[in-house]
């Protein structure tokens, strides 16, 4: 009986496979959009792809298509709109809610090797109704890089950090007075958040947020620690005392001509905390080769390849999240730093703010926060204004 059933099921599967309008038989070529153009990154990606092709002769080509990080999501959605969607795509954490909820991505849990060992805090953003829609291949905690030539004593609190870098620059490389979400690396220390967990209530007008932003404003305009709007200071060239950045940036310090170290984010009034930035890789549902793409994704993220990728992209597999394994691929960072910044960071961290319709929120908040970046700004009034602007957007979801 069971054999008969198996036969019927196989026949049905074969039938659906043939009649499926989108499935393509014969040689397949896969394209994955990525935002890195770093040679070392691409070399590793191509190595993994070659290995996969060797064991899967039906896949003739796996192409990594580098799109500049600036405007990455815009380019990706334009490709999708133009009917030229890639088979696989890296997705930024801030676009995750849009991609996951819209149904643009295909479910992949079944293809992921040992999916149970993925750290739950890292997969949360990429799940819907218990299904996984993208693999969080890079989960990178924010830490404080310190130039030890300029700063002798490592700061434990934000007050100390700002005091120590007054006139010597505490930089947030990706902020640029545009990407306000980077500031969450600071304001989480005050217990503030951009919006409530369910995404419906605005958090900018809260007391915690006002205290945190008053601190940031003072650090910019009074203490002269954070460089003002329009001023670019490069920590990685040795021009700043400290930088709030993601661990994945440590590679830029390979040939640094100055002493540096990496410590967890300083404590805020609310104590210890961690913030992580994330990137997932998903399979586009509309890809003609979605099945093959999901299969490759399974291979790309299996334990062995995750270990290789770990040298650039911090992994989310429990089995790899120990200082010894990470130390092998991160020679620049000491094991105790890996433990305190990376491992503890990933397990207790909260992901940078993300919401459905993130890009519209981004632009609206960016515009509403602009009046804050002036010496005489009224912090409380500006933040109330942010909530007034984004309230309709939060309620729309």
């Amino acid at each position, binding site marked *: 009986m069971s054999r008969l059933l198996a036969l019927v099921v196989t026949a049905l599967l074969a039938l659906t496979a043939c009649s499926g309008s989108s499935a393509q038989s014969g040689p397949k070529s896969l394209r994955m959009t990525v935002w890195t153009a770093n040679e070392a990154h691409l070399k590793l990606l191509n190595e993994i792809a070659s290995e996969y092709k060797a064991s899967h002769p039906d896949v003739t080509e796996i192409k990594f298509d580098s799109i500049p990080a600036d405007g990455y999501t*815009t380019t990706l*959605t*334009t490709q*999708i*709109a133009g009917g030229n969607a890639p088979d696989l795509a890296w997705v930024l954490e801030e676009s995750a809610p*849009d*991609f996951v909820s*819209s*149904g*643009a991505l295909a479910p992949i849990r079944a293809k992921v090797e040992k999916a149970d060992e993925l750290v739950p805090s890292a997969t949360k953003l990429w799940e819907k109704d218990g299904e996984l829609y993208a693999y969080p291949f890079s989960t990178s905690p924010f830490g404080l890089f310190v130039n030890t030539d300029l700063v002798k004593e490592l700061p434990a609190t934000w007050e100390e950090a700002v005091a120590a870098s007054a006139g010597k620059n505490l930089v947030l490389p990706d902020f640029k*007075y*545009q990407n306000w979400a980077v500031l969450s690396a600071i304001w989480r220390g005050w217990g503030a958040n951009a919006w409530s967990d369910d995404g419906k209530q605005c958090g900018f007008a809260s007391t915690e947020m006002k205290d945190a932003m008053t601190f940031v404003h003072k650090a910019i305009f009074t203490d002269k620690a954070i460089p*003002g*709007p*329009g*001023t*670019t200071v490069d920590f990685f060239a040795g021009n700043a005392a400290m930088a709030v950045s993601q661990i994945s940036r440590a590679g830029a310090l390979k040939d640094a001509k100055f002493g540096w170290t990496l410590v967890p984010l300083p404590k805020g009034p609310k104590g210890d905390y961690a913030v992580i930035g994330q990137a997932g890789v998903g399979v586009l*549902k*509309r890809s003609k080769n979605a099945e093959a793409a999901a299969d490759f994704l399974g291979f790309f993220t299996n334990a062995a390849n995750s270990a290789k990728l770990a040298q650039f992209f911090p992994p989310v597999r429990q089995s790899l999240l120990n200082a010894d394994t990470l130390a092998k691929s991160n020679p620049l960072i000491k094991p105790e730093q890996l433990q305190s910044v990376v491992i503890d960071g990933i397990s207790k961290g909260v992901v940078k703010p993300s919401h459905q*319709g993130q*890009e*519209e929120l981004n*632009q609206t908040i*960016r*515009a*509403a926060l*602009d*009046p804050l*970046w002036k010496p005489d700004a009224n912090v409380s009034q500006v933040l109330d204004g942010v909530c007034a602007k984004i309230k309709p957007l939060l309620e729309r979801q």
Partner: protein
Amino acid sequence: MTFWTCRRRDNLIGYLFVAPALLGSLAFVLIPLAMVGWYSLNEWNVLGGTFEFIGGENYKQLLNDEKLRDSLVATAWFAAGLVVLNLSLALLLAVLLNQKLRGTTLFRTLFFSPVLVSLVAWTLVWQLMLQPEGSVNGLLGVFGVDGPNWLRGDTTAMVSVIVVQVIKNVGLNMVLFLAALQGVPAPLYEAAKIDGAGAWRRFRSITIPLISPTILLTSIITIVGSLQVFAQIAVLTQGGPGTSTTVLIYYLYQQAFQFHHFGYGATISVLLFVIVAALTLLQWQMRRKWVLHES
């Protein structure tokens, strides 16, 4: 009676001659234009892959969109500032460089050369120059002036975008004006001089009327161009600070390509099309009033 009469054959040959251009504009202008109109009647979710007919909903949203109003105001300021500054500067330069003096060729080349520079490269260089510690403020510092943070102030950002664009393109209008000025017959000036007309009077009563067809042409080109400015905004201010430099095209880009509201984006392009068409038509109608040989 044969079918291929001479007349018919001539017509066919004529159609064949225009066919390439006609097919080109059909494929790349008329069809896309019609499609934009069609998209504007739909809600298009790119990520989810849904495309749903919603009739006039997008147009209703157009009427209630506060941000759209802000961007129309920004567009009006930008267009007005650009057109006035560009045309008057171009005319001034053309008159100055129309003199028979040594070195005018060099100056003509200098003022025209920005037109040939890649727009994005030009804008990126200006972005660096306009930083708080950039060379513009450095130059002002020489004269003891403490320059502002150009791209971060509400007014200075708009002024910066306009000036960067004017310097980029003023050379083109200048060349057009120069050509027109050189077409003004010298005897007219001589006759006016004998009648006792001063320099200003000659300029107003002879030069302006005689070059008025060129003024019409340059003003149409400049106004249409000013409504289509995009790269400068995208590079210099990204529409900020606040929404002070979010001109219509940039707002359209945000809605369609950043916020994924392709249907609404298409609706804004229809609005832009109507505005450009209306302005051009208006200028065309007004030409009878002030352009020579047109009344």
